[in-house]
C-alpha cells in the first residue's frame, strides 16, 4: 500500500510566502511608466518633446545671434551660418524659431497647468459638497462655457495689449471648465468607495479626502485630458498669432513667424515651412504622448 506521504509532502514554511520574495514593491505609477515605455510611438514622442524643450531652453544661450538682431544678410536660404536662413529683416530664423518654441511651449504648458489647478479645485469642491452648492457652481460653469474663449482673448487684448499675458489669461478664463466637469464626475463616483468611507471614519477632513484619496484616483483621466489640452493651447496661440492677433513684434511665437513669412511664401517658402513644421512636430509629439499615456493609465481602454 502506498504511503500518503509519498504523494503529499507538507511544504516548507519558508516556501509559503515565496511569491513575495522575488518582486520589488510596484506602485501604480511604476507600472504606468513600464507600459508607457513599451509603446514605441509614445516613447519617441516623449524623446522628441524633451529634445525640443532642451533646444528651446538651452539653444539660445549658444546661438551667436540675438532673436531681434537684424543683419545685412536678408532673406538668405538655409546654410551653415544660418541653419534656417534669415528673414526679411536679416534676423536669424533658427534663433527666432527657438524663441518661438519657448513661447509656444510656455503658453501651452502654463495655461494647461493653471486650468488643471482651477478645474480640479472647482470641480472637486462642487462634486464633494454636492446638492445646491453643486448645482449653482455647475450653472456658472455652463455660462462661462457658453461664451467662446476667442471672445475673452480678443477682449483682453483690446484692454491689455497683444502679449503673452492676455492670451494666457484669456485661455484660462474658461479653459478649466472641461477639467472641472471631469473632476466633478470623478469625485461623485468616488464618494461611495469604501476606501473613501474608511478615510472618513478615521476622521479625515474634506481636504484630505478630496486631494489625497479622491485626486490620486481621479488623476488618470485628468492627466489624459491635460496632455490633450497642451497641444490645443499651442495650436490656439499659433492660430491667433497667424491671423495677426497674437504676440506682437519683436517677440515672436511660431504662429507669428509663420504670419511674417506669409508675404514671401512664393519666393522663400522655407521661412514659412520652418516654424510650421516645428508646430507640427510639437503637436504630433504631444498627441503621441497623450495617446500612450491614456493606454498606459488604463490598459483595458486601448484605442
Amino acid at each position: 500500500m502506498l504511503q500518503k506521504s509519498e504523494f503529499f509532502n507538507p511544504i516548507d514554511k519558508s516556501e509559503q510566502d515565496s511569491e513575495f520574495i522575488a518582486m520589488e514593491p510596484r506602485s501604480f505609477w511604476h507600472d504606468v511608466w513600464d507600459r508607457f515605455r513599451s509603446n514605441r510611438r509614445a516613447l519617441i514622442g516623449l524623446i522628441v518633446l524633451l529634445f525640443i524643450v532642451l533646444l528651446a531652453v538651452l539653444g539660445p544661450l549658444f546661438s551667436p545671434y540675438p532673436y531681434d538682431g537684424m543683419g545685412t544678410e536678408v532673406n538668405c536660404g538655409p546654410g551653415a551660418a544660418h541653419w534656417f536662413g534669415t528673414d526679411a529683416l536679416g534676423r536669424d530664423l533658427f534663433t527666432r524659431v527657438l524663441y518661438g518654441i519657448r513661447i509656444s511651449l510656455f503658453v501651452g504648458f502654463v495655461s494647461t497647468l493653471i486650468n488643471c489647478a482651477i478645474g480640479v479645485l472647482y470641480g472637486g469642491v462642487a462634486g464633494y459638497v454636492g446638492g445646491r452648492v453643486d448645482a449653482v457652481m455647475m450653472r456658472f460653469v455652463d455660462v462661462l462655457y457658453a461664451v467662446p474663449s476667442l471672445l475673452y482673448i480678443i477682449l483682453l487684448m483690446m484692454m491689455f495689449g497683444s502679449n503673452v499675458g492676455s492670451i494666457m489669461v484669456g485661455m484660462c478664463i474658461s479653459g478649466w471648465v472641461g477639467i472641472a466637469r471631469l473632476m466633478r464626475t470623478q469625485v461623485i463616483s468616488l464618494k461611495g468607495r469604501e476606501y473613501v468611507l474608511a478615510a472618513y471614519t478615521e476622521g479625515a477632513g474634506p481636504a484630505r479626502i478630496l486631494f489625497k484619496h479622491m485626486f490620486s484616483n481621479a488623476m488618470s483621466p485628468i492627466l489624459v485630458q491635460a496632455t490633450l489640452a497642451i497641444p490645443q493651447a499651442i495650436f490656439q496661440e499659433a492660430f491667433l498669432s497667424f491671423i495677426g492677433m497674437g504676440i506682437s513684434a519683436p517677440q515672436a511665437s511660431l504662429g507669428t513667424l509663420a504670419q511674417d513669412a506669409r508675404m514671401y511664401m512664393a519666393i522663400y517658402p522655407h521661412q514659412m515651412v520652418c516654424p510650421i513644421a516645428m508646430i507640427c512636430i510639437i503637436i504630433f509629439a504631444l498627441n503621441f504622448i497623450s495617446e500612450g499615456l491614456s493606454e498606459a493609465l488604463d490598459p483595458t481602454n486601448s484605442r
Partner: protein
Amino acid sequence: MEKKTKETKPVVSIRHAKKYFLAGRHLFRPSDYVKAVDDVSFDIMPGETVGLVGESGCGKSTLARTVIRIYEPSAGGIFYHGADISHLSNARLRPFRTKMQMIFQDPYASLNPRYTVGEIIGEPMQIAHMGGKDEREGRVQKLLQQVGLKPDHISRYPHEFSGGQRQRIGIARTLALDPDFIICDEPISALDVSIQAQIINLLEKIQDENGLSYLFIAHDLTMVRHISHKIGVMYLGHLLEFGDADEVYENPLHPYTRALISAAPVPDPEQARTRHRIKLTGEVPSPIHAPAGCPFCTRCPECRPECLLAPPVMANQNGHKVACYKYV
C-alpha cells in the same frame, strides 16, 4: 440561564434609529423615502459581539454606517458610552473616530490602490497626530504582525496581496488607534471559503487580545452564531428579533427567523432530509412602499388580521426580544 450577567454599561446604544433616503420628490403627493433603517434599538456591551443578520438590502450596511456616523440618523439616537453622537458635526466627532472603527465588505475596494500598506495603516495615526514618522512605522509593523502579515510588507501596494491578506490589512488599519468598538460589515462574504475561517479566527483572537466589542454583520446565520454573543435579525429596515445567540438559534420566536434557520444548510444529511423546512414565498417588498403593518406580513405564514394594521412593538421575554403579534 447560567450566562454571566455582568452589570456594565453598553459601549454602544442604538435607540429608535431611523435612516431614510430621499427616493423621489413629487408635486402633488409627499416625497418617497427609502426606509433603509426603521426604528431599530439595541445595545452592544463591552467585549461582546452582536451579530446582525438579514437578507441583502434589508438595511444592515445602512445601520452600520449610521452607527459609525458616516450617515446622520434621520431620527433616533446613537450613543457611544452614553454620549449622544447622533448629530455631532464632523469636527466634534473626531475624538470618537479614534474609538469606533469599521471593517468593510470588499477588501478590493476598501484600500486605496495608490498608497502603500504602511501609508494605509498609518493614516489613522497621522490624522490623529499620533507619534512621529518612525514611531508610526514601528506601530504599523507591529500591527502587521498582529494580523498575521510580515513587517516588511509595509512598503507593498494593495494589489500585490490576495483578498484575505487585504482584509488583514483592513483589520490592521482599524486597530491602529486602539478602538474599543469595531463594526465588521460582512468582512468575509467577499472572500474564498477556505480563507473565511482564518479571518474569523483572527477577529476572535484580536477581540481577546484587545478586549473589543464587535457589531458583526452577515447574511449567513450559521456563521454568525459561531462568533456572536447576541444576534439581531433584520428585515426591511426593522429589527425583528434580538437575543442571546444560542437562544435565538435554538428557540427562534419570530416566523421570519424560523424560516431563516430552517433554510440554513445543515452538515448532517440525515437531519437535512428529515427536518421541517419552512418555505418563504413571495418577494421582499420595496423599502419605499413598505407594508403599513408588520413588515413581514406579506410573506408570513401565520399572518393575522391585526398584523396588517400597525407594526408590532418589541416584546421582551427574559431578554429575548421579538416584534410579532404572536407574542404580545
